[in-house]
């Protein structure tokens, strides 16, 4: 561990990671990695999660490709200093903000998107010019192993290290001092990470989760069907509900509940089939521990009684059927904890506006999804709820919009990335003020007197005329009280 950190710091000190040529070479290396190993990546994801190649491309390979290409296209622009406006008083001078790498950073990947949640932050760290350690999640061992064995063939092994292992390795890593830690995972582990980082004053980005709700307004016609398609796709599509921005539960008006349930059942049968032993195009639960955790959510009799579709599981293959629940008890675990699985509670309300208070009683989630054509409701949702993001009339897709920051608030985390935000998250923005020796302001210096004090008063209110008059002795001080 010592040698690992020292080696990376030494590489950083030699300066090569700051060069744009080096950064671009690494980004191209990441691109080549995903392009040349596509089938191996599909295979590893199938092994770890039963992920279908289309889902794997959409959520993992495609995301990494898009990020790397976006960085390559924009990196020079991002690396340029930004000019700051300076007051005339400081003439002649120039101010700018210069992004610089933080140094040596640590990234913790997660098991649900084991390729993209390791490589997407890595892309950010590399574009910002840092040396990096990536610890993929041990709960996705095939992907972890693939990254460990293959990344060094594409990236500069002196600057990027993949470290495999479980919580013991994570603990050892956390004892070292890093210039930034980027963590994707649960709030529980987020606290541990942040506490460890506190010892070294290490800045941290925490991408956590939460119960991401859907607010489904009532409207008629084919658009409602489209909405339900998107809800079904947003629940079971990303890793069978094991996604931080995955839909957790739906809020809908009582009068639309039964049509919603019918349409959802149709979607499930169409997309995945209706035999739990033979479900298609959907991931399995990652391991026994999470399988038991999710199944246990259905143990509560009140919850079991509310199942309107599904509820069966295949323990041997760690498959849980897409399950719909109608109005489970609100104090049951399924409604107080992040589900992270293929169970979809539907909560009915008299008026859809009640969804706002409902959501506000829970911790701030990573995403809120609202399907509505009512502009007034949209405005209310935006102003009266708080979440990492809000998406209207769709779900999950905000993830691939690079112009939007991706991150949480409150219990769903802090910090953000994607697009330029990734570059910024791994950079320090250094303010630089350039002054010349020319044009000295005498009143800056002691010994102090009333003249100098009045000068500064006028200067700070940018009262240049007054200043000029004062300097010429043509002004009587106006001390307002």
């Amino acid at each position, binding site marked *: 561990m010592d040698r690992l950190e020292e080696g990376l710091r030494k590489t950083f000190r030699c300066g090569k990671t*700051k060069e744009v040529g080096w950064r671009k070479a690494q980004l191209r290396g990441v691109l080549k990695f995903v392009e040349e190993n596509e089938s191996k990546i599909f295979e590893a994801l199938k092994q770890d999660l039963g992920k*279908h190649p*289309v889902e794997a491309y*959409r959520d993992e390979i*495609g*995301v990494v*490709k*898009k990020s790397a*290409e976006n960085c390559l296209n924009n990196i020079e622009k991002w690396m340029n200093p930004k000019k*700051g406006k300076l007051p005339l008083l*400081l003439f002649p*001078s120039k101010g700018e*903000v*210069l992004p*610089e790498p*933080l140094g040596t950073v640590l990234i913790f990947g997660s098991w649900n998107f084991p390729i993209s949640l390791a490589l997407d932050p890595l892309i950010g760290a590399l574009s910002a010019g840092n040396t990096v350690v990536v610890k993929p999640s041990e709960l996705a061992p095939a992907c972890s192993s693939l990254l460990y064995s293959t990344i060094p063939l594409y990236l500069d092994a002196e600057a990027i290290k993949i470290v495999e292992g479980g919580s013991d390795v994570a603990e050892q890593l956390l004892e070292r001092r890093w210039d930034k830690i980027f963590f994707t995972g649960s*709030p529980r582990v*987020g606290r541990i990470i942040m*506490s460890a*980082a*506190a010892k070294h*004053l290490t800045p941290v980005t925490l991408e*956590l989760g939460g119960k991401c709700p859907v607010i489904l307004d009532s409207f008629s016609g084919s*658009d409602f069907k*489209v*909405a339900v398609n998107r809800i079904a796709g947003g629940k079971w*599509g990303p890793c069978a509900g094991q996604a931080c921005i995955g839909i957790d539960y739906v809020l809908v008006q009582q009068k639309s509940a039964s049509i919603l349930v019918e349409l959802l059942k149709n979607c499930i049968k169409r997309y*995945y089939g209706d035999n739990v032993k033979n479900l*298609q195009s959907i991931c399995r639960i990652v391991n026994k521990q999470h399988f038991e955790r999710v199944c246990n959510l259905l143990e509560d009799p009140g919850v079991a009684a509310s199942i309107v579709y599904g509820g069966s599981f295949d323990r041997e293959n760690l498959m849980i059927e897409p399950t719909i629940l109608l109005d489970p008890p609100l104090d049951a675990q399924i409604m107080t904890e992040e589900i992270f699985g293929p169970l979809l509670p539907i909560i009915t309300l008299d008026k859809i506006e009640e969804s706002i208070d409902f959501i506000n009683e829970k911790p701030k989630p990573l995403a809120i999804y609202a399907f509505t054509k009512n502009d007034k409701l949209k405005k209310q949702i*935006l*102003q*009266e709820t708080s979440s990492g993001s*809000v*998406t*209207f*009339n*769709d779900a999950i*897709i*905000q993830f*691939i919009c*690079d*112009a*939007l*920051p991706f991150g949480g608030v*409150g219990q769903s985390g802090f*910090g953000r990335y994607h697009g330029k935000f990734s570059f910024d998250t791994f950079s320090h923005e*250094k*303010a*630089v*003020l350039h*002054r010349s*020796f020319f044009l000295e302001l005498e009143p800056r210096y*002691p*010994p*102090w007197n009333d003249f100098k*004090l009045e000068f500064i*008063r006028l200067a*700070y209110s940018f009262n240049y005329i007054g200043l000029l008059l004062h300097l010429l002795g043509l002004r009587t001080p106006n001390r*307002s*009280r």
Partner: protein
Amino acid sequence: MALDAEAVMKELRSTYTSGKTRTFEWRVSQLKALIKITTHHEKDIVEALRSDLNKPEYEAFVHEIVGISSECKFVLKELRKWMKPEKVKTTMTTFPSSAEIVSEPLGVVLVISTWNYPFYLSLNPVIGAIAAGNAVVLKPSEVAPATSSLLSKLLSQYMDTSAVKVFEGGVPETTILLDRKWDKIFYTGSGKVGRVILAAAAKHLTPVVLELGGKSPAVVDSNINLKVAVRRIISGKWGSNSGQTCVSPDYIITTKAFSSQLVDALKDELEKFYGKDPMQSNDFSSIINSHHFDRLTKLLDDEKVSGKVVFGGQRDKTNLKIAPTAILDAPDDSLIMNEEIFGPLLPILTVDKIEDSIGRINSKEKPLAAYLFTNDKKLEEEFIKNVSAGGMAINDTVLHLAVNSLPFGGVGESGYGAYHGKFSFDAFSHKKAVLHRTFAGDIDARYPPYNPRKLQVIKALLSGNILSIIRALFGW
């Protein structure tokens, strides 16, 4: 009065939930109230600062009072613009869609301030918190008791106390506050206490801004206007609270050949500023208290350093004053070269070539500020590129703080997060991503059952390339 933190939090959350602090009108009213405090109570503030720090009226005015009123005025001018959502461009990948970033307050925030600019460093973050629409608790430093007490009195008189509160006290009161769940904590002070704050914040996953300090170096090249440079160094060191400033030049690096000229110039200008006996000058601050006075005299009396004083060294324990003092070539393992000095002692380190200063600086922790006096463009470029610090000024000191279009904050041991100007507004805001989609053009390739054609469409969509999207959609 015992601090009932739970009742306080309840009231603040209730105020925040009511939505009052989010309105433009409320924020404006609070900022205007702060301006009123600075104009109506200038004398009281100067008095409190004289009492706490023996701060000269000029410094009290220029560094503390005016800083607050001008920042409030700037924010009032820009606030409506900052509060507007920022439209961002979407690509073919999410077509048709529109997107924006909405700034919203974090909720209820805690500002913990420090003693050296007790008025300015308490209210400047509060300006940011209010501008962003939060409810805020301010805990001023107990080490500057007159200012702390004045802030408590004035804020309760002028501000909306259902949303803006001041709690005075020391470690016990701060600990009680830190136990609660805040939506953000803003701390100015030392790295040691910064770690305590972070550990407390970690329990609630509270984001933090840490404005800490460090040993801010000033590198002085030889081919410069020495008089102007020296005046600016003196202003940033002894003219800024007697060196008790997070961005004061902590130590100087210059060449062996130039050091005696530099020392002579410093002596000359110091005499012009403070007279023959600076201990008698009213324009020169005292040390905050006897604890820090003893800390500083210990640095001077260190046997590794005591023989190297080139001017100054006088001290007056009764009046807590230490004269402007310079030490030539203190060894790297001396106490004075291993902690932030925060006082009127100035080590001058000499190197053979001025370029060597970069390596000397980089062997220490990243400071809050770094300064370079030079006319050599190449040296300037090397310095900016290779020295990491919170902020930098070339050919001046401290002034970069006064430019509110530049972010002010640290890196590494000097902290993280930034503020001033719009950066303050951003520091206390959550930037919420909003994506608007329509129901038109729903692509069935999104949904299972998956097949190779759908994969083609997904690939094309993610590439953002309109031609490949069209081709894929038509199955070509």
